[in-house]
Each structure stands twice: as C-alpha cells, then as structure tokens.
C-alpha cells in the first residue's frame, strides 16, 4: 500500500498544480537546491527550473514582500517560511500588505499568495523552532488561515488555496511532516490532481453525544486518542477537526454543542488570547442556553516554548482526557 507523508502531500500537490498553472512559483530560503528544510519542495527545482522554484535570500520580510509584488503582477507565489518562529519579519508584509491590498484599493487589486508556515512543537526545537503563531493571522482581516492534520487535508487545502483569490496562511504541523498515513484514501487523495477541500468546512472525526472536542493541526491526534480513551470511560465525544481556522465552520461547532452541551477546545499555542478563546467567546454568545458545563481549553502555557519542557508544554491525550472528564462530570 502506498504511504504518503504530509511533506510528500505538500510537494506532490505543488507539483501537480504547477503543471496545471504556470503562474505558480515556489519561493523561500533553500526551497530549491536543498528542497526545503522539511523536504516539502524536494525535486521541484529539477522539474520546474529556477524561474519557478526560487532560492531567496534569508529574509522573511523580503521573501513575503517580493511575493506580494509577484502576486500583484499576476503570478501565484507560494512563499515558504522555514519555521513559524521566523515569520515575524514577514508579518508586516502579510498583515499590512497582502491582507489589505484588496480592501485598501477598493477591490481593484487582489493578492493571491500562499504563505506556508511549518509550526508547532514535537521536534525538540526549543523556543525558536516550535511556536504556534496562528492567532496573529486569525486576528488579521483579509487572511484565510488553514491548519491541516493529515496529508490528505494538506493536499486538499493547499489546492483550494492555489485556486483561490485570497491570501492564505497554511499552518503546516511540522511534527506530522514525516508521519506516513497508510490509509489507501490518503494516497488516493494526494494522487488525485483535482482533490480539493473547501475552506470553512470542518471534519467530524468521531460522533458522540456527550462532549464536543475541537482541535486543529497537530492537536487533532491527541484529541482523537483522548476521545477513544473517554469512550472506555463511557463518555462519547464528538470530535471536530476545524481544518480552516478563519473563516471557521460555525455551523458544525454550534450543531455539535447544541447536541452535547459541553465543549473542550484544544490548541498548542499559549493560552491567553489564543485562537481557542475566540471559539469560547462564540459559544458564550451563541450557545449559552445549550451549555451545561464551563467551556474548557487545553492549551500550551503562557510561557515561551522550552526545550527541556517540550512534552510538558504541548498538550497530550492525558490532558485532553482530563478536560473531557471534567466537563462530562460537571
């Protein structure tokens, strides 16, 4: 059976789309000769040449700024940031330029680019190779933010991004890059050069009537494990993988909580003012009469990421299970 990793899914989808649309270019530090720090662009330089697979100087502001200029000219740049922790010099061009060009020009310009950002812990990266900065992007009007949890979802969301008109931040869980999905449907999805997932549609990974569990990206996997463990305790969990963080699937969230009356939200990022806080606020506004327990968050801590304490920091299935049991028993 074919095995496809998340990194391979990104690479194969880029290659398929670059064959279809010659305006797509891949750019970033070491994306060409080195094939990307996580090998997600391996082989593209050989197939598409240096006009379309561009090794850029190591400066994220310059990479994104140049990508914005290319997008305005009519190309579809895919800018790779080596690690999410390094995106901050590029935030200015993402937030002030890419996200606002359509708006500030009254719709006269558009800026269809994709910024690929390997994020999260799990590889022993310490404070500068482990961060989860999605809230900077989800708090910026004009950006679509997606976070796949599987190789197939990465392929489907990337394809939709490459065929859309909005700037898209693709949060790639680096802990999952090398994870091979053995499922045949994954290989089929990645091999299918038309497989696309619409933005704003969550995946229901497990059905249950007792607790709603919401996760995205790398956290989907401890969430699923915790849901299985909860079932052994007699608690049936409805597991939602958001896939798109902005704009997220409000319908799926509210439908689930209307049924369960209980919600646990999981994110790897620091707790305060993180993405899960928005979900909690929406539940407070729109689902208060369904709620039978406090909405709980399972998150990273309000500290920088620590090398030695990585496994303490990143939420695991035990912490998620603890929150599930707390709301179930409330």
């Amino acid at each position, binding site marked *: 059976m074919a095995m496809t990793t998340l990194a391979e899914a990104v690479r194969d989808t880029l290659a398929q789309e670059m064959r279809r649309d010659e305006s797509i270019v891949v750019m970033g530090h070491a994306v060409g000769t080195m094939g990307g720090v996580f090998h997600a662009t391996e082989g593209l330089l050989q197939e598409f040449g240096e006009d379309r697979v561009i090794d850029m100087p190591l400066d994220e502001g310059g990479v994104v*700024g140049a990508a914005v*200029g290319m997008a305005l*000219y009519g190309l579809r740049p895919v800018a790779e940031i080596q690690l999410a922790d390094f995106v901050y010099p590029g935030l200015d061009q993402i937030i*002030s330029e890419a996200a606002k*060009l*359509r708006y500030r*020009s009254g719709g*006269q310009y558009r800026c269809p680019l994709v910024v690929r950002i390997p994020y999260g812990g799990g590889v022993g990266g310490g404070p500068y190779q482990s961060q989860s900065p999605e809230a900077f992007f989800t708090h910026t009007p004009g950006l*679509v933010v997606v976070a796949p949890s599987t190789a197939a979802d990465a392929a489907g969301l990337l394809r939709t991004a490459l065929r859309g008109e909005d700037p898209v931040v693709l949060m790639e869980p680096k802990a999952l890059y090398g994870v091979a999905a053995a499922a045949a449907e994954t290989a089929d999805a990645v091999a299918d050069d038309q497989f696309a997932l619409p933005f*704003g549609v969550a995946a229901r990974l497990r059905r249950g009537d007792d607790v709603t569990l919401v996760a995205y990206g790398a956290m989907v996997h401890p969430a699923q494990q915790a849901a299985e463990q909860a079932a052994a305790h007699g608690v049936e969990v409805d597991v939602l993988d958001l896939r798109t963080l902005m704009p997220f699937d409000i319908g799926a969230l509210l439908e689930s909580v209307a049924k369960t009356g209980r919600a646990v939200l999981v994110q790897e990022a620091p707790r305060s003012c993180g993405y899960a806080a928005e979900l909690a606020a929406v539940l407070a506004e729109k689902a208060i009469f369904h709620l039978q327990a406090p909405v709980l968050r399972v998150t990273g801590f309000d500290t920088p990421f620590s090398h030695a304490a990585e496994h303490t920091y990143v939420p695991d299935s035990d912490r998620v299970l603890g929150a599930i049991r707390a709301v179930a028993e409330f």
Partner: protein
Amino acid sequence: MSEIQSMLSGDVAEVDRESLALDDAGLARMYEAMSTTRAVDKRSARLHVEGEIGFYVASCGLEAVSVGAGFTLETPDWLFPSHRDLGMYLLRGGSMRAWFDQLFGNVADLTKGRQLPGHASLPAGRFVSVSGRVGAQISQAAGCAMAIKSRRDKACVLTSFGEAASSAADFHAAMNIAARFRVPAVFVCRSARRDIGAGIGGAAPVATRAKAYGVSAARVDGSDVLAVYRAVSEARSTATEGGGPTLIEAVLDEAALFGAGAPAAGDPPSADLDPLARLREYLEQCGIWDAAREDELGARLADRIDEAVAAARAEAKPPAHSLFDDVYGELPWMLQEQRERLVSGEGD
C-alpha cells in the same frame, strides 16, 4: 561619492539637448505636467487645511522627481509609488476627478474611502495602491521585477520613496534581491542635500549604500527635471535591456523636501530650487514657452480643478455597509453577520 548630475544651470547653451529624447512639444508637455501636479497638490493641501478632507501629505517642490521619472515610463511598466507621487499618478492616466474623489473618500472614489487622502490606486496605469506603511512598496517592486524577468516581458518596475524609507528593512531586502536576481527595476529615492552623516538616513548617501549591494546608482539634482528624466531614462533602458537594477538618488534642498510634507505646504521653494521655475526659464530661453501660454495654462488648470473639486465635494459618502466589502473575495459568515447587525441597527 559620485557627483550630482544636473542639466538646468541657467545657461541655455550648457543644456545638452542631444542627450534627451524630447522635442519642443515634449518639453512643453513635461512643463504642463509639472504645473498640473503643483496646482492639484496645492488645492489638495488647501482642502486639508480648510478642514474639508483628512490628513494630506503635500508634494509641492518635488515635481521634478515625480514628473521627470514618470515621463520615462512606457505603457507596460509598473509603478510602486509612495504618497508623494501625484505627478506619476496623473501621467499614468489618473484623472483629476478620480484624484479628488479619493481625497474626499466619496461614493465615486474607486478605493471606496478606505485610505487617507493621496493614497491612490490605478490598476489601468499599473500604478499600485499606495501603502500607508513607509517603504513597504520597495521589496514588492523587486518581486514584481523578478516576475517580469522570469516571464521575459519587456517592461520595468519603478518604485519611489523618500530617504527615510532607505533605513527600513524593505529597502535593504529590495537592494539585496534586486542585485541578486539582476531584475529590471529602477529605484528612485528623494534625499536631502546635506553633510554626510547629519540626516535622518544612514551615514552614507543612499546611492553609496545601493552600490554596496551591487545596484548601479547615480545622484541627480532633484529640482532639475531634465537631469532626473535623463538619469531615469538611462536606468529604464538598462533595466529593460537586461542590465539590471539602478537606484537614482534625487537630491533636494532639505527645506523643500521636508517642507513639502507639511500639510499646510503650498509655498513653492525659492526660484533657484523651484523645479517649475527652472524648467520654465529654460523653455522661455528656447522660445518654447512664454507669459501668454503660462497665463492660459494657469487659467485652464484653475477651471478644471474647480470643476473636479466641486463634483467630488457634491458626491455622498459611501454607504456604511460597504465597510465589509473587499475584505475577502466572498463575504464570510462573520462579516455577513456583522453587516446585517449594522444595517438593521440591531447592535452588537
């Protein structure tokens, strides 16, 4: 550092017309473009001072740069402008009416009242939406030039900015990228004439810093439109012929440069530093211009500007619900919801 190139010395015999691809009619058009730019700018600044529009950054005294550089461009060229490039906006086909509509942020404004006065956007003229973030356009211009080069298109990119932006990270990123990929780009920087190390820029002149990155550079007299035109023309030819990027540093009198930014600006610099006066003197010496033409132009501009301002002032403001348009290609659920609550008066 290299000398500051000039052409308009006051002595008609010293002007090397052979080095310019401009006939008499072209020179007259150039002067008219500069006069139009100044008249529109002065009126724009007055609208701000009188409280009719929001904050406006004037560009009086900088016409030699915006018109001299803008005059060199061909149709397929792209412009990544700053907010003092009114001259380029008009040369690229922007109308007075559209300009004043933007200043008033009215319902006819193509940018829908989203930006401060003077932050124009003109896709038909390949004049990119002006950012409120100083310097952001410089690295974008380098990327656009990369795209032009990779597509083998016969065009160049011109970006303009003030000296302050040369300290921004975008400038350094752009110089590095432009030199690395030898892109067809022309960078035009407006700098103040002063002792080295004394100003708001870096310790070395901008042109020196550009050269250190491997970008060709020249310094020109920024109130001498013919010198700007000649230098930018050469840079454009070099760019489109595969010779790589050039930075043109237009050196201006400090008072003219920074005074122009004051919202109340409107008084032109002294005659020896006034780009309009300098070109007019030359044109009069050549018999291309005279007092009668000057009066006729002044009257015509005043009428056209009055008409455009009156029309723009009479337009309504955009409807409140247009606030939600153009954030995304399609309105997502949260914006639909916010829009409905605003329109219905339902509240938060």
